């Protein structure tokens, strides 16, 4: 098991946003957590990268307890995040942003690996290559989202957390970005945890899914089965 979360609780000023959430991810899986606005999806991801400290529960990664670790330690263990609203470094160039994703890589082998993944990412995101010398602030929302994904992937992470990647994107871009994530999972074996309001799009590319409702996991299972589940269709897919 790559990621094992058990009984995770998070409270803001005494108000609990997550009440003992448990989930797990195997290596190579693409798992999504779907739920409405305010269900606690982002809170869940932020606690997994270490931006939120849990009030209870245990998070273990690759068999190691990381519940209390700070985010830069988690990043070094191989957990990366594509945060909500991309959060690229706007006053740095596209190339520099990508290099930040490879922060701390030194030595010949690592440098070679970074150069290889940079080449691969540039072929996946040709627009980033064309704009590599431009400031990230000059990119459109969709391009920033692509940059954010590329920045998170350049270090060849073991687990990629993706937070509301569809938000603020044009519908056509949403499909492209989801197809890309599916491709990264299929071809590179990248393990992905996707948190989404766009349930249909994310279920289509996922192996398994969890449904989060006001801080509790209310349903879990195969993504295909969820797509056909009456309750899901009614509540989240609007079909």
């Amino acid at each position, binding site marked *: 098991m790559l990621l094992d979360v058990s009984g995770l609780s998070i409270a803001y000023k005494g108000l609990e946003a997550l009440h003992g959430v448990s989930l797990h991810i195997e290596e190579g899986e693409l798992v999504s957590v779907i739920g409405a606005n305010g269900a606690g999806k982002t809170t869940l991801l932020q606690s997994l*990268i*270490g*931006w939120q400290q849990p009030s209870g529960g245990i998070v273990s990664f690759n068999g190691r307890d990381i519940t209390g670790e*700070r*985010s*830069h330690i*988690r*990043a*070094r263990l191989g957990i*990366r*995040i594509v*945060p909500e609203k991309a*959060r690229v*470094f*706007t*006053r*740095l160039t596209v*190339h*520099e942003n990508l*290099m*930040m*994703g*490879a*922060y*701390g*890589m*030194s030595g010949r082998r690592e*440098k070679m690996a*970074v*150069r290889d993944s*940079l*080449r691969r990412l*540039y072929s996946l995101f040709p627009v980033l*290559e064309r704009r*590599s*010398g431009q400031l990230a602030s000059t990119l459109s929302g969709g391009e920033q989202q692509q940059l954010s994904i590329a*920045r998170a992937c350049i*270090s060849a992470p073991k687990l990629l957390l993706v937070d509301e990647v569809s938000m603020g994107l044009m519908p056509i871009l949403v499909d492209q970005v989801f197809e890309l994530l599916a491709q990264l999972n299929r071809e590179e074996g990248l393990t992905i945890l996707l948190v989404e309001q766009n349930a249909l799009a994310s279920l289509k590319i996922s192996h398994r899914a969890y449904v989060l409702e006001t801080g509790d996991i209310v349903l879990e299972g195969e993504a295909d089965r969820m797509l056909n589940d009456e309750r899901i269709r009614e509540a989240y897919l609007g079909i």
Partner: protein
Amino acid sequence: MDYFATVATLIVIQAIAACGLNVIVGYAGQISLGHAAFFGIGAYASAMLTTKAGLTFWQALPAALLITMLLGFLLGLPSLRVREDFLAITTIGINFIVEAVFIYTPFFGGALGIGGIPRVVVMGGRLGNNQFLALCLVFLVLSLALCRQFARAWAGLACFAVREDETAASSMGISPVRAKLSAFVLGTGMAGLAGTLYAHYARFISAGDFGFPVSISIMSMVVLGGMGTLFGPLLGAMIIGILPEIFRPLIDYRMFIYSVLLLLMIRFQPGGLLGDSSLVVGLLKSLKKLVKPKNIANPREIGGDGDV
């Protein structure tokens, strides 16, 4: 030419201190309004070591640098955990405390300061004014080279990322505390270097030389020239150093002129004279285009291997 050498030496020394502040404020985005404290610590350390312990300038210099950087580290550790306005207030506090320690401790010469600081001796000969100016210029070039190197190294990139978005940076394996501390220690080290040079230039120092107004003046240089640019602090130091000489009759209104200048800069050119969207840089670029009309926007090498 003594007048020229005197003014120029002071400008160069202040430029070194401003370069150091630029690493902290411009590169790492941490407001420090107490930079003069570290300027003073360097000056006092070197003054004490040469007058009381009998060291030469060359022996005292590395020791003074180490002392300043160590104190920078110790004072930075708690300060850098607070952000923005609180950091500004904390660093102002550090400035006043350090100044007070110099004034009220008899060990540091109290209100009388320290006099009789020896001149710098190179190969058996005392340096004259022009030679000392040359020495200061050498140190300025070294400082600029160091800043440039830092900005290209991982440590520098980490600082830029922390300046832009501390939380996002942390999810890339960057420890924000470490990045800020590295900038703070390097920046205070350069203030210490400037302080040491100042002590051996003035040859008499007292706590008043390192008060809060000096911090403001160094900050003005950085803001005026362009925070986060390599040569901005140098340009700022030159302008702020030369202006009072040109406008001697207006000396009483100096602080007023600084403030107006600073406010105008922040309002109309927040990036400074050499910063982003700067009028001066824009003008130079369009002049260049006139000269070389076929110049296409800089073609960047694919994968740009320099930074990996």
